[in-house]
C-alpha cells in the first residue's frame, strides 16, 4: 500500500508541476500541452479497454470524432455551447460517445483478441465513411470550421492559457474519475476478466455486461475528449477520426504503459512532443516517432511506466547471475 500512496503522490506532484510551470512557458508549449492533454483523455479512455479489460480497440477515434463533430455542428448551426451552455455540451458529448459505444458494443463485445481489433476497426471506418461523405452535415473533406470561436462565460476561453486551465481541469477530473473506477469493485472485476476470463465466468460474473459497461464508459470519455478537441483547434475534419487517429491512441497508451492510466497521458505527451515539437526542428521527425515506437515495443513491453519495474527485474537477474557465478566458481 505504501508504494501505491507514493505513486499517487508522484502523480499529484507532477500534475501540480504541470499546472504551475506550463503557463509560464512560451505559448507554443502551452498549446502543445493543451492538445496533448485532450488526447490524453482519449488515450486514458482507451486504457480502460486495453489495459484494464484486455480489449485492444482500433476504433476509439469514432467517439472522439462524434464528440468533436457534434460540438462543431451544434455551435455553428445553433450557436449552442458557446456561452454557459458549454457546460451542457460536456454531458451531451459524453452521452453521444456513450450511446454510440452502447450501439457499437452490441456488435463488438462478443469478439475477442484480434477479432475485437478488427471489428472495432470496421466500426471506426463506418463512422469515418459517414463523416467523409455526409457533406451536408459534416462538410465532407473540408470539415467544419467553428465560426463562433471558443466559449465565453465570464471566463474567456479564447485566451490560450485559460483554455489550458480548463483542459487541465477536465484532464485531472478524468484521471481521478477513471482511477476511482479502476479501484472500485467493478474495476477489480474488469482486471479479473482481463487476467482470467473463464474463471470469472465460472465464478458467476456476467463477463459480457462488464465488458459492455467498460466499453460504454470508454466511449463516453472519448466523446468528452472530442468536445474539447473541437474547441482546442477550432476545426473538425474527417482526419479527426481516420484510422491513424485510433492507431495513435493505441500506441500512446502502450508507449506510456497500458493499465496505468497515466501511461496514456505520458504517451500522448511524447507523441505530440515528437510530432509537433520535433517537427519544428527537423523535417524527418517521422523516423524518430517510428523509431520510438519500435524501441518501446521491443524493449519496454510495459511502456515507459514500466521502466522502474524493468530496472528492478534487471538488477535481480544481474544479482542472480552473479550469485550463480560465485556458486559455480569454486567447483
Amino acid at each position, binding site marked *: 500500500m505504501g508504494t501505491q500512496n507514493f505513486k499517487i503522490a508522484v502523480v499529484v506532484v507532477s500534475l501540480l508541476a504541470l499546472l504551475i510551470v506550463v503557463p509560464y512557458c512560451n505559448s507554443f508549449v502551452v*498549446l502543445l500541452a493543451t492538445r496533448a492533454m485532450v488526447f490524453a483523455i482519449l488515450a486514458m479512455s482507451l486504457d480502460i479497454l486495453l489495459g484494464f479489460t484486455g480489449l485492444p480497440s482500433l476504433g476509439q477515434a469514432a467517439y472522439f470524432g462524434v464528440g468533436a463533430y457534434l460540438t462543431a455542428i451544434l455551435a455553428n448551426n445553433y450557436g449552442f455551447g458557446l456561452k454557459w451552455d458549454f457546460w451542457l455540451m460536456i454531458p451531451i458529448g459524453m452521452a453521444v460517445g456513450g450511446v454510440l459505444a452502447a450501439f457499437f458494443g452490441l456488435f463488438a463485445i462478443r469478439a475477442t483478441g484480434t477479432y475485437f481489433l478488427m471489428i472495432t476497426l470496421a466500426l471506426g471506418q463506418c463512422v469515418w465513411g459517414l463523416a467523409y461523405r455526409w457533406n451536408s452535415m459534416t462538410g465532407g473533406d*473540408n470539415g467544419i*470550421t467553428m465560426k463562433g470561436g471558443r466559449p465565453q462565460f465570464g471566463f474567456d476561453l479564447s485566451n490560450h492559457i485559460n483554455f489550458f486551465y480548463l483542459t487541465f481541469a477536465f484532464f485531472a477530473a478524468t484521471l481521478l474519475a477513471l482511477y476511482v473506477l479502476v479501484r472500485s469493485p467493478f474495476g477489480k472485476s474488469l482486471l479479473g476478466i482481463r487476467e482470467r476470463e473463464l474463471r470469472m465466468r465460472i465464478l458467476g460474473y456476467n463477463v459480457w455486461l462488464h465488458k459492455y459497461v467498460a466499453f460504454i464508459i470508454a466511449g463516453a470519455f472519448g466523446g468528452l475528449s472530442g468536445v474539447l478537441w473541437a474547441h482546442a*483547434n477550432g*476545426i473538425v*475534419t474527417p482526419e479527426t477520426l481516420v484510422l491513424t487517429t485510433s492507431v495513435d491512441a493505441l500506441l500512446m497508451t502502450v508507449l506510456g504503459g497500458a493499465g496505468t492510466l497515466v501511461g496514456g497521458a505520458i504517451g500522448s505527451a511524447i507523441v505530440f512532443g515528437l510530432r509537433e515539437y520535433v*517537427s*519544428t526542428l*527537423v*523535417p524527418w521527425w517521422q523516423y524518430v516517432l517510428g523509431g520510438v515506437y519500435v524501441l518501446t515495443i521491443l524493449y519496454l513491453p510495459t511502456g515507459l511506466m514500466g521502466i522502474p519495474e524493468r530496472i528492478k527485474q534487471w538488477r535481480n537477474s544481474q544479482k542472480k547471475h552473479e550469485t550463480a557465478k560465485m556458486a559455480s566458481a569454486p567447483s
Partner: protein
Amino acid sequence: MTSASRNLRSILIGTAVTVGLGLSAPVGAEELRIGYLAPLTGGLAQTGIDMRDGFLLYLDQHGNKLGGMDVKLIIEDEQGKGDVAVTKAKKLVLQDKVHMLIGGVLASTGYALAPVSTELKTMYIPTIPAADDLTQRRLTEFPYLVRTSWSSSQPHHPLGQWACDEGYKKIVTIAADYAFGYEVVGGFQKAFEDCGGKIVQKIWPPLGAKDFGPFIPTIKGDADAVFSLMVGPMPAQFIKQMRGAGFKKPILGGGTSYDEFVLPFMGDEAIGDVSALHYSAALQTPENEVFVKAYRAKFGKVPSYYSENNYTTAMWLDEAIKKAGGKFPGPEELIKIMVGIKLDKTPRGPVSFDDMRNPIQNIYIKKVEKKKMFGYDKDELWNTVTKTYPNVSQFWTYGKDKFLAQPVYDKNFPPCKFCE
C-alpha cells in the same frame, strides 16, 4: 531517380535541415520574419515542397531579401492537417514573432488559418487554398487575409463561356465530391448555362477515388463532352480509364485536372484535353520562360501553379515592402500597400487585386499537347495556351454585388435544371 537520391543525401549530410532549424542570422537590422506553412510529410508532401521551392527560388534569386529587408523564413510542416496547421501557425506568431503567415494547401487549412490570422492580428496569405468565400462572402471575418493565388471558380467561368462559344450544347460533369469540386463545377455550369449550354448530369465520385469503374458507365450517352475536376492522384487514372472504356468525345477539365503537378505523370491519353487555370508552364512570355528554366534547373521539374503562385507571392511582397520603405509597416498598412500594387511581369502575366483582395489575372484556356518547349530536347506533355481571357476577376462578368448576392457554389447550386 536522381532527385530522389539527392534528396536522401542532402538529408544525411544535413544541408536540408538548416532552413527548418531557423538558425539563420542573428538579430541585427530588422529582418522580415515569415512563417511558412506547407505539408512536408504525408500525402500532400510534394505539393508542399513545390510551394516552398517556388518561394525559395525567388528569395534565392534576390539575395534572400524582400524589399531590402533580410528575410528569415521559418518553414513549418503542417502535415496536411488543419489542426496541426493551426498549432504551427500559433507557434510561428506567438513564439517566433513572425510578421506574416504564408501557405496552406487545402481549402480546409485556409479556413482553419484565416480565423487564426484574425485572432492574432497577423497577415495571412493563402497561396494555394482557393475556397471562394475566403475572399468573397466571408472576407469581412478575415481582415488580415490577402490572397495572391485564385478563387476556385475564377478560371472556370471563362472555361464555361469558352465551351459554349465552341459550340458544346450538352455537358456531363464528373467532379470530386467536396467543396472545391462544387465551386469549380458551379463556376463552369453558371457561365456555360448563362450562355445557353446545358449541364445534363452531375456525377460526384468521392474525393480520392481512383477506380472510376462505377461512374463511367453512368455517363449519359447524348452529351457532347465531359467536364472533370480531379485532384492529386485522381486525374491520371480518370483519363486513362475514360479512354479505356471507349469514351471518344472531348474531355474538358478544371484547373487541377491537368496542372503541371499531375501532367508529367499522365499518359498520351491526355493529349487534346482542354482545361483552364491562371497559369500554364507553357505560357510563351519571356518572364515565364526564364522562370520555368530557372526552376527546372534548380529543382529538376517543371513548375506547377503551386510553385508559380508562391514565386509571385514573394515578388508581390518584394514590391510591397519596397514601397513601405524597406521595413515592415504593420499588417494593416502592408495589406493596404500590397493591394494597390499591380505587377506586369510575373510568370503568369499581369496581376492586380480586386477590392476583395483576390487577384485579377489572365485566365488561360489550355490544351494538352506533346511537344518540345523552351529548347528542352524531349517530347513532353505541355499545357499549350490556346486562348487568353485577360484580367478576369473572381466575379467574372457578373459584377461584384450581383455575384455576392447568390449563395456560394454548392453541390446543388446552381441547380441542375437539365438533369432529367
